[in-house]
């Protein structure tokens, strides 16, 4: 393509006001986050009045009056996210192998739909449905109900990168392994899994973030007394926003950005490797 002075080339950068619109969009997207991050370092009880740089609200998160509550919620969030992502990744891996390697079977399209539709279902619907379902089967709401719900809604998110990865792996690798005396498990363990690993890691990290971040479903089915970080923050905000919430939110944001970047880099280096071949 010619990108020089060719009038027919569609180049949005040449449109008047392009830079201005871009900056406005970026501002709307990121200004609230920047405000939260900036004011988390504010040495003032007021959330709007700046009175100098301080780390007191970060100290407050870890040692203040609400520290015990946050610590418990953080522990719940992390342990649930870790377990849910692990279980969801295993289920998604099995599903991907069945779907991609299972050949043609009746209801394949339907199965794919059933796996991916939960991503599109409004969360509030899932939340209400799960609440009704759990009370119907008599499951006591609490840590376990949150964990089960998180595993379920994480599976489709884990499934997508794993199945995408598996589709790029030729079946002849597994055939070669089996031809060289590996049974099905060993062919998976020594050949297929190492090749799928980048997809599995991406799926795991995505599921982990989704679980860590979930508020609506968790809020419905958490039961009394069990909090995750998002529900704890929501609870605290209801009593009025204190700057320690901003510090906590900033910490969560950093953690999420870290994980997403990690997931991105795993996916990217893998793609580069494939391009090199």
């Amino acid at each position, binding site marked *: 393509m010619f990108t020089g002075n060719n009038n027919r080339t569609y180049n949005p950068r040449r449109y008047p006001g392009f830079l201005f619109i871009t900056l406005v969009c970026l501002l709307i997207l990121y200004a609230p986050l920047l405000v939260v991050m900036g004011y988390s370092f504010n040495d003032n009880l007021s959330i709007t009045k700046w009175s100098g740089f301080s780390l007191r609200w970060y100290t407050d998160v870890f040692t203040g009056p609400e520290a015990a509550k946050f610590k418990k919620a953080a522990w719940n969030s992390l342990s649930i996210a870790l377990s849910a992502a692990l279980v969801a990744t295993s289920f998604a891996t099995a599903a991907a192998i069945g779907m991609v390697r299972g050949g043609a079977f009746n209801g394949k399209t339907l199965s794919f739909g059933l796996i991916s539709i939960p991503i599109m279902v409004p969360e509030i619907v899932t939340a209400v449905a799960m609440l009704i379902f759990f009370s119907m089967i008599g499951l006591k709401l609490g840590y376990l109900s949150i964990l089960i719900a998180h595993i379920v809604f994480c599976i489709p998110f884990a499934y997508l990168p794993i199945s995408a990865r598996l589709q790029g792996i030729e079946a002849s690798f597994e*055939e070669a392994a089996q031809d060289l005396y590996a049974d099905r498990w060993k062919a998976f363990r020594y050949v297929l899994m190492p090749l799928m690993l980048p997809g599995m890691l991406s799926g795991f990290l995505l599921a982990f973030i989704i679980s860590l971040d979930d508020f609506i479903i968790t809020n419905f089915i958490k039961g009394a007394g069990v909090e995750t970080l998002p529900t704890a923050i929501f609870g605290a905000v209801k009593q009025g926003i204190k700057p320690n919430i901003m510090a906590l939110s900033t910490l969560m944001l950093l953690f999420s950005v870290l994980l997403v970047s990690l997931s991105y880099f795993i996916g990217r280096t893998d793609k580069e490797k494939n391009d090199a071949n």
Partner: protein
Amino acid sequence: MNSIPTAVSIRAVAKHFGQFVAIREMSFDIADNEFFTLLGPSGCGKTTLLRIIAGFENTTSGTVLLFNEELKNLPPNQRPVNTVFQNYALFPHMSVANNIGFGLHMLGWSRKDIDDRVDQMVKTVRLEEFINRKPAQLSGGQQQRVALARAMAPKPKVLLLDEPLSALDLKLRQQMRAELKALQKETGITFIFVTHDQEEALTMSDRIAVMSAGEVQQIGSPSEVYEQPASRFVAEFIGDTNLLDASVVSAQSNQHNQVDVKLDSGECIPATAASPHALENGARGHLSIRPEHITLNALSTTNDLAGTIRNTTYLGTDTQYEIKLDSGVNLFTRTQNSGNQQHNFSIGNKVNVSFAPNSARFLSH
């Protein structure tokens, strides 16, 4: 009984994929130590047959015997055969050494035995200095050698090769042909080699099974399938040939299947019938004559076939002539360039055409 044991016995094997018949019922034996080639165009069922022997596909009916033991439902990992895949399927996350040692590792060999065998194999395929490389860091020819070494390391009774040379460039392909053939003689392993390349098949094989549309057309040594094609398909698929419509005028009942046939253009020609069955007078078919079996002479008074040179093509070692016989039939011939000028003809020259009766194969419909 034959003194050479049978390595693989294909017994009434058929394979259907739904409505599609990949292999019609076929039976034949492959001898131990043999370099056996399945030759045919794509879609003829040769790769399917290889995958049945390897255990990746089940037969619809019939059985495969390996050294007289039935293989029918054994999974691939329990069959003492190994495969060299068309795209090599080298494990990209493993070094050359680990690729070659993979089968041995799965068989439960000790670390030391694996190392010794891997050393031996990399020496055999001359890849000593690449042992720690990953497959992506090797050239196509080197990857090919790793695939061979990996498949041969567990000392399989039969080695299956699925178009292993098709990804290489011409020069390397010719070199690998000789190496493969030498490797097969050296190790004594039975090779079953799948290819669509007739030159590969002719230069390497002890015997060739020519396949088409799920059926074996002919099994024989390279010279048999070339010199004595059993059907029109074999005559056309292997090498070049002149195919002329003809019918039998006198079927002699004596030996050698000698028949006299009459071309549709009118000439009567003594020929050899490819069919072992007695032919009736009037049976229709094709006369196949290889271009290099035809001799050209300057026109004389003998009543040989006479014609005119229509075109000449210089091919280096040979010259190809297109000849129109007086009856209107077109033939092409190939004459080796000996450097002797008197054998050269030019466009418009009148010539006599002659060939031995056993060079004219009558292939009945």
